């Protein structure tokens, strides 16, 4: 339980916004934010300013061949290591990038206007179809029955915040995000949610599971299908915004 007053939290708000506060002070401040909308707004507004400061970064000339190296890495990341897969997707008209997790339409959000990024995700799904044969590779050599796969949970800003583990028998997913409450509060979300676990396999649409309450963390959720075909697991909110994703 936070023992900090609003005045004390306002003193720490800038450090929270800049992500340089840690230890007991951070924990106490975050606990206070959980119950104080005014202080949450204070931190959120300062966080926006901190992000804007990146605009000031002066440009630097990249090393020769930088662009090619990035595009090569994207191509490598998109194409599974298999001799049947062309090494140069550009030469075959294939995309250089694999599809990324798409925002789902949770039940409560259905009927709303579909955000543009969802349309983009639909386009990405077409890419999945084009690579259908490729994606089947993962099912050809399944993991041992008792094995579990793990992958880091990465936020929208690229921060590693936890881990997702996939169990095979019974099929289940365990999501561990130690600072979930802090993460939600930092970006203006609500702890109560609701939040959804979006599990994407090789299929055309993701499966959605309701995320348990924050105090039931880590979240262990039984899967309807096999865990061996899971390609990504994301936490999304009721508006369809992706908060973090683990890619397998």
């Amino acid at each position, binding site marked *: 339980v936070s023992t900090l007053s609003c005045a004390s939290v306002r003193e720490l708000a800038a450090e929270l916004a800049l992500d*340089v506060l840690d230890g007991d002070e951070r924990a106490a401040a975050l606990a206070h934010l959980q119950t104080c909308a005014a202080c949450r707004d204070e931190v959120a507004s300062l966080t926006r300013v901190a992000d804007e400061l990146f605009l000031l970064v002066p440009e630097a000339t990249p090393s020769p061949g930088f662009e090619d190296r990035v595009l090569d890495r994207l191509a490598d990341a998109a194409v599974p290591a298999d001799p049947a897969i062309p090494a140069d997707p550009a030469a075959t008209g294939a995309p250089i990038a694999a599809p990324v997790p798409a925002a789902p339409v949770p039940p409560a959000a259905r009927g709303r206007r579909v955000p543009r990024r969802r349309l983009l995700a639909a386009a990405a799904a077409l890419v999945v179809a084009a690579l259908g044969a490729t994606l089947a590779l993962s099912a050809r050599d399944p993991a041992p029955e008792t094995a579990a796969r793990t992958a880091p949970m990465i936020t929208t800003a690229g921060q590693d915040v936890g881990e997702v583990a996939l169990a095979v028998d019974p099929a289940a997913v365990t999501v561990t995000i130690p600072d979930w409450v802090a993460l939600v509060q930092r970006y203006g979300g609500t702890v109560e949610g609701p939040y959804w676990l979006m599990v994407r396999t090789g299929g055309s649409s993701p499966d959605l599971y309701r995320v348990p309450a924050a105090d039931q963390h880590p979240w262990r959720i039984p899967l309807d299908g096999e865990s061996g075909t899971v390609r990504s697991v994301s936490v999304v909110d009721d508006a369809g915004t992706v908060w973090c994703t683990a890619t397998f």
Partner: protein
Amino acid sequence: VKGVWDASDEALLAGYATGDRAAASVFVRRFQGKVTGLALMMTRDRALADEVAQDAFVRAWRYAASYDPRRGAVGSWLLGIVRNVALDRLRVAERRPAVLLPDPPEDVMAADAPDAADAVGERDSVDRLVASLDDLPPEQRSTLLAVTLHGLSAREVSERDGVPLGTVKTRLRLALRKVRDRLGVTVP
């Protein structure tokens, strides 16, 4: 590729996410200067900065679909990724930029910052930011930029500048609030 060069940052990121090679090429060219600039600013190491910049573009591609325009511009989002990647790399290397940064980070106020902004259509925002920072006392400005753009902790700034930790924290707080108030930033 006609049209791609003129695409908005958002549209370009969308193409980047769906795997369009032309869009990816333009996206990298549009932002590589700033991405490299921040990576270099934080690491002060050319080779490491190059790796950080590459990693950031790959990570951005992997999570492009999760970009939310309500939380800021594409450039800010991408540079936030750069900052996280750089901090991760520096932690792994057990090398903090504090020991590699002998001078106060006034270099971001150099004239090339607005020039860079022209390339991505952010000139107005940069001008307003620069004006806001100009209004700050030098020690507040230096502290704020050291933490935001160089990735230093308050303690590292304290050690670097030889001032009490409490003073650094106060400078940070006052600086960020002043800039916010000057820019009129509110919660969406």
